[in-house]
C-alpha cells in the first residue's frame, strides 16, 4: 500500500513539475509570438478583434452637426483656434465645388462621423481597407513592423483626403471572460486640409488623426464598432478634438449605397 502511495505521489509531483515548467514557458512563448512570432504572423492572422464586414452609422450624438448641414459659422464643441475663425466665416461651398474640393468634409479628420456605411476588408495580409459609401472614400491602414518604417510610410507620397495611416493592434490578454480581445490604433497624417464639419470648420494639412477602434456586443446579439477619434492640429485647433462615432454591424452589403461627395450636403 505504501509503495502504491509513494508511486502515485511521485507521479503527481512529476506532473506538477511539468505543469510548473509549462507555466514558466507559456508567457515566454506568448511574448515570442508577440515579438519575433508577430514578425512571422501577418496583421490579419494576429488580429485580436474582427472588424471586417459592413457597418452602419447609428447617429445618436452630434446629430445636429452630422445629419444636417449646420448654419454657417457654427463651430460649437470644436476647439477652433483664432486662426480658424476667418475661414469658418468665409465658408463658401459653391467655391469648394468649383475648385474640385467637394470632398473636403470627407477627409480622415471627419469621415467616420459622416453618416453612412463602412465596408471593412483585408486588402492584403497587412493592410486593412475601409471603404465608405458616403463620399466613396477609401482608407488603407498599413500595419508596420517598425516605427521607422511607419514614419517613412506616413511621410511618403502626395497629400490626400485620407492621408497615410499606420495601424497597430493593441492586444489584451486574459480577463474574466478569457479569450483576449483588444483594440486597433491608427495614426493618420500627410493629409490634405479639410473640414471637421460640413459647414467649413477647418483642419490644416498639419493635422494628425489618432483613432482607436473597439468593438462591443449589443444586448440583441449584434455588434457595435466604436471609433474614438482624436484630431490634433497646431494651426486650427487649440486642443484635441475628440469624438466617438459608433456603428452597428450589418449582415451584408444589401444597403450599401455609394454617393459622391457634396460640399453642401
Amino acid at each position: 500500500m505504501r509503495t502504491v502511495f509513494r508511486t502515485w505521489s511521485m507521479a503527481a509531483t512529476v506532473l506538477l513539475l511539468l505543469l510548473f515548467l509549462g507555466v514558466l514557458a507559456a508567457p515566454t512563448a506568448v511574448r515570442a509570438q508577440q515579438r519575433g512570432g508577430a514578425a512571422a504572423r501577418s496583421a490579419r492572422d494576429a488580429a485580436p478583434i474582427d472588424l471586417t464586414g459592413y457597418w452602419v452609422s447609428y447617429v445618436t450624438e452630434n446629430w445636429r452637426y452630422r445629419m444636417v448641414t449646420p448654419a454657417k459659422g457654427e463651430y460649437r464643441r470644436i476647439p477652433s483656434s483664432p486662426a480658424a475663425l476667418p475661414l469658418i466665416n468665409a465658408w463658401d461651398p459653391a467655391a469648394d465645388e468649383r475648385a474640385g474640393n467637394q470632398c473636403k468634409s470627407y477627409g480622415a479628420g471627419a469621415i467616420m462621423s459622416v453618416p453612412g456605411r463602412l465596408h471593412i476588408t483585408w486588402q492584403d495580409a497587412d493592410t486593412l481597407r475601409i471603404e465608405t459609401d458616403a463620399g466613396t472614400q477609401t482608407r488603407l491602414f498599413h500595419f508596420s513592423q517598425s516605427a521607422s518604417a511607419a514614419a517613412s510610410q506616413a511621410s511618403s507620397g502626395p497629400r490626400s483626403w485620407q492621408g497615410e495611416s499606420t495601424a497597430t493592434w493593441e492586444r489584451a490578454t486574459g480577463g474574466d471572460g478569457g479569450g483576449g480581445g483588444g483594440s486597433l490604433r491608427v495614426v493618420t497624417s500627410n493629409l490634405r486640409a479639410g473640414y471637421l464639419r460640413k459647414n467649413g470648420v477647418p483642419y490644416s494639412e498639419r493635422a494628425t488623426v489618432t483613432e482607436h477602434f473597439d468593438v462591443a456586443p449589443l444586448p440583441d446579439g449584434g455588434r457595435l464598432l466604436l471609433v474614438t477619434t482624436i484630431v490634433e492640429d497646431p494651426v486650427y485647433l487649440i486642443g484635441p478634438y475628440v469624438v466617438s462615432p459608433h456603428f452597428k454591424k450589418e449582415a451584408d452589403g444589401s444597403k450599401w449605397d455609394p454617393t459622391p461627395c457634396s460640399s453642401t450636403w
Partner: protein
Amino acid sequence: MLIHLVARRAAVALLFAVLAASKASAQFDFVGSWAPLATEDIQNDSLPVDYLGLALTDEARTRALSYDESQKSMIERQCAGWGAAYMVLGPFGLRVTSQTDPVTNRVVSFTIGAWEDWNEMIIWMDGRPRPSEHALHTHAGFTVGRWEGGALAARTTHVKAGFIRKTGVPLTDQATIDWRFFRHGDLLTVLMVATDPVYLVEPEIVSKSFRLSRTTLDYRAECVPAYEGHEPGDSIPHFAPDQNPFIDEFMKLYHLPREAVLGYRETLYPEYRKKIKDTYVPPPPCTESCGAAGNFVLRRQ
C-alpha cells in the same frame, strides 16, 4: 517526502502567480479623476421637446410631451437628481475610487463619485449575485462589472423609473444599461447602451470621452431644497401632450425636421439624411444672441 511537498507547493504558488499576472494584464488603472471633454453634443441645449438622437415608442413620446420642467422646482423633487444614464449625459467628470478586500487585496468594487445631481454608482467586481427583481430600485441602480477584452464591462439593473434625457424623456424601472469603459492612454471612453422594453424602440447608445486629470475632481455639492414657486401638495406641473407650448422651439431654432426632434427611429440612420436632402434648409448664420448657449461664431473678425 519533503521534496515532494515543497515542489507541489511551489508549483501551486507559481500557477496562482502566473494566473494573477495574466489577469492583471487585461485590466487598466480605472482609479483616478477623469475630466470631461466637451467636444460632443449629446443633450444639445437642454431645450424643451428635444428628443433628437433617440428611438422612442409612441408611449414615451406622449409621456415626454407631458413633461414640464417646472416639476424640478417642486420642493420634494429638487434633490431627486438624475438616473444612472446621466453619467454620460451630464456635464461632469468622473472620480473613481476602488475598494479592496483586506485579506486578498482583490478589488471588490469601484465607486464613481456623486455629483450635485447624480448619485454615486458602485460597480461590484466580486461577482456577487443580483438582488431579487423585487428589491429596492434606486437612481443609481445595481451594477456588476467584469474585465473583458481589455475593457471594463458592466451592467446596471434595478434602476428607479426616471429619465434618459433632461427634457423629460422617460425610462422605466425595467431598463438595463450596459457599460464599456475603454482606456487608451490618458483617454477614457465610456460607452452606454440603454435598453427599455417600454420606452425605447432601439437602445440608446451614447459614448463620451474623459481625460485623466492630474488634480482630484470632486463634484459633490449639498442639495438644499428651497421654495421655488411651488408649495408642497401643489399639483404636479405638466402639459396635455398635444398642447405642449414648447413643441416647436428647438425645431425652429435649428430648422430641424419634426420627426427627428420627436425621436423617431428612422432618423438615426443614414437613409434619413438622404430622405430630407432636398427639403432641408439650414438656418441663416447667426449674428447676435446666437442660440441658447452662444453656439455660433460671433463674427470676431
